[in-house]
């Protein structure tokens, strides 16, 4: 049953992606409306699928790599849909739907079936830590995607050419608003996630402070986040500058994350 649901969700994500591509090719916002609804359906199917897995296994499915990918896809879709229904910037979904589709596709082979979970991870604090951190990162990804589209639209408006694309992409103000909103919520989620992780570490690793690559990376991410939120809320940055910085930080984080995964051994790796 859960495998079927997963496939169904993938199919719906694919449908949404195709609608978006069609709308881009035609440069008309109208088909993107269908894409949004297809994506909402995909999100619903994905949610039900996660509930099934959760019931099957008896714990929140955020432990294995496929779990994490699927949860990330789910979070980013949910966050995007929230934004969508608030601001009606339909076309932004063109950057979200393919991401969710690929992540879930990648996750799908290993996602069902029973996994032996190390006892060290069987704690509600761990689930909280992982899911909040992932949500924070999903929000951050959304902020980045909004930032990328902002920079594209900004460039088009400055160059004053290709009216059809200017007309097709969302207004700057909305994209800027999405970037800010995602940063604030992402920051809140990540902060709470890190706090939960710290508590858990205190309990399981009895207080010793490990200078681990992943810890440093998390703190780095948190500091970037904090800088961006500060510049936006306190200094009053809007528009191009925060968009650029968001993207820059994002790629920096992605790069170091991949580097860290491949180069450094970590206490914090379980699979």
């Amino acid at each position: 049953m859960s495998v079927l649901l997963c496939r169904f969700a993938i199919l719906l994500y694919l449908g949404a992606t195709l609608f978006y591509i069609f709308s881009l090719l035609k440069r008309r916002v109208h088909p993107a409306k269908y894409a949004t609804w297809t994506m909402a359906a995909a999100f619903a199917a994905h949610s039900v699928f996660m509930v099934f897995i959760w019931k099957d296994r008896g714990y929140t499915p955020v432990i294995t790599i496929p779990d994490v990918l699927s949860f990330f896809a789910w979070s980013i879709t949910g966050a995007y849909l929230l934004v969508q229904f608030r601001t009606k910037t339909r076309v932004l979904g063109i950057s979200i739907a393919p991401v969710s589709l690929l992540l879930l596709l990648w996750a799908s082979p290993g996602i069902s079936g029973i996994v032996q979970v190390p006892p060290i991870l069987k704690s509600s604090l761990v689930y909280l830590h992982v899911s909040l951190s992932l949500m924070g990162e999903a929000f951050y990804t959304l902020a980045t995607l909004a930032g990328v589209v902002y920079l594209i639209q900004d460039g088009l408006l400055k160059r004053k050419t290709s009216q059809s694309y200017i007309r097709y992409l969302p207004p700057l103000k909305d994209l800027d608003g999405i970037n800010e909103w995602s940063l604030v919520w992402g920051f809140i989620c990540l902060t709470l996630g890190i706090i939960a992780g710290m508590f858990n570490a205190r309990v399981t690793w009895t207080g010793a402070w490990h200078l681990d690559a992943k810890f440093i990376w998390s703190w780095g991410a948190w500091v970037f986040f904090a800088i961006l939120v500060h510049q936006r809320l306190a200094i009053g940055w809007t528009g191009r500058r925060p968009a650029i910085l968001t993207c820059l930080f994002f790629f920096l984080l992605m790069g170091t994350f991949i580097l860290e995964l491949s180069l450094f051994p970590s206490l914090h790796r379980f699979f």
Partner: protein
Amino acid sequence: MEIILVGTNHKASPLEIRERLTPRDDETPHPLSVIRKLPSVQEAFFLSTCNRVEVLAGAKDAETAGRAIKVYLMNRGKLTKGEGEKFFYHYKGEEAVRHLFRVAASLDSLIIGEPQILGQVKDAYRLATEMGATGILLNRALHFSFRAAKRVRTETGLAAHAVSVSYAAVELAKKIFGQLEKKTALLIGAGEMAELAARHLMKNGIQRIILVNRTFSRAQELAAAFNGTALPFSELPAAIMEADIIVTSTGATGYLITPEIVATSLKRRRNRLLLMVDIAVPRDIDPRVGKMENVYLFDMDDLQDIADENMKIRKGEAKKAEKIVEEETLRYMTWFKSLETVPTIIDLREKVETIMQEELDRVGAWLRKLPEEDREEVEILLRSVVKKILHDPITALKEVQMEEGAIGYIALLRKLFKLNKTCPPATGRKDGEPSDI
């Protein structure tokens, strides 16, 4: 009865001819009531805009009515016979219907896709119904034309993009700010272009308008008209600080707004986005301003390019629109052809036959229990009842066929007995027309 259309438009005649045909506001009797009384004219609709004067009529005889209307129009415009032949077109049946639909859908307009024409057609129709000049043929035709226009607007991009310079500025503003509510516009210079831009911005929800002009009294005048604030020229930097959209159109020879002025105010406006539209020639804003962060500057040439590009899109969309008009014309003609007496009688008989057969089938089990003769008796009885009920209406229909109002009877009959399955009901919803020309 047939539908005809006689008239002239911007392609067929020069402006001075159309001017002579246009009725004055207080003209009595109204042209419509004169046309309605012309020989062979049974229904009439009169449309007069700056680009066209047209008469649509339901006529008993297309030739007689067409000639009478043409003569009437020629007399109105004091035209010679030769001029009349040259300037007026005369369409019959399907052609007339198609022309009406093209007009309502703004395919026949000077600037294709401009939205006012539909409103003008609707107003003219309202007047015609108030005067009782229209009947079943024209009512249906006009409702169909409204639907064709609506479909063209929703299904094609014919009317979607601004083709005027001042409206192109509003479109850009929407692409930057999304909603224009709660935004402040600053107009520098109080010329005609500024006024037009102000009107468009107001219509699109801008909250506040500030006016700055060398001649302060003129700024005050405009401010009063738009419910805005007038500021003296010395207050310009302060005004820039508050504004989200700036439109300049002064006659100044040098640059009024330099990067330095904008830079100081940008800092104090916390980097809010700023759209600047420079429609002055020579320009009022230093082009270097456009390179600044969060500032978007467009001059007259940029806006003209946008408008031109949009015009090209409209022309492309016109093909799709023509297809919709064709479909609606076909629908109307299908309905129109159903209004003949003989097919209506056949339809009516068929419908009643079907009902009878269905009822007989329904009680089939019971019928089979009856002896052979009784069964036949029942069917004969049923048939004779049906025949008698239908006899009078059908005879009456054949009689009125010779009279003027036959079409009304037929239409009513088709409606009462729901014989119009092939023809969807007409819709005549009212829409708020955006105006961008």
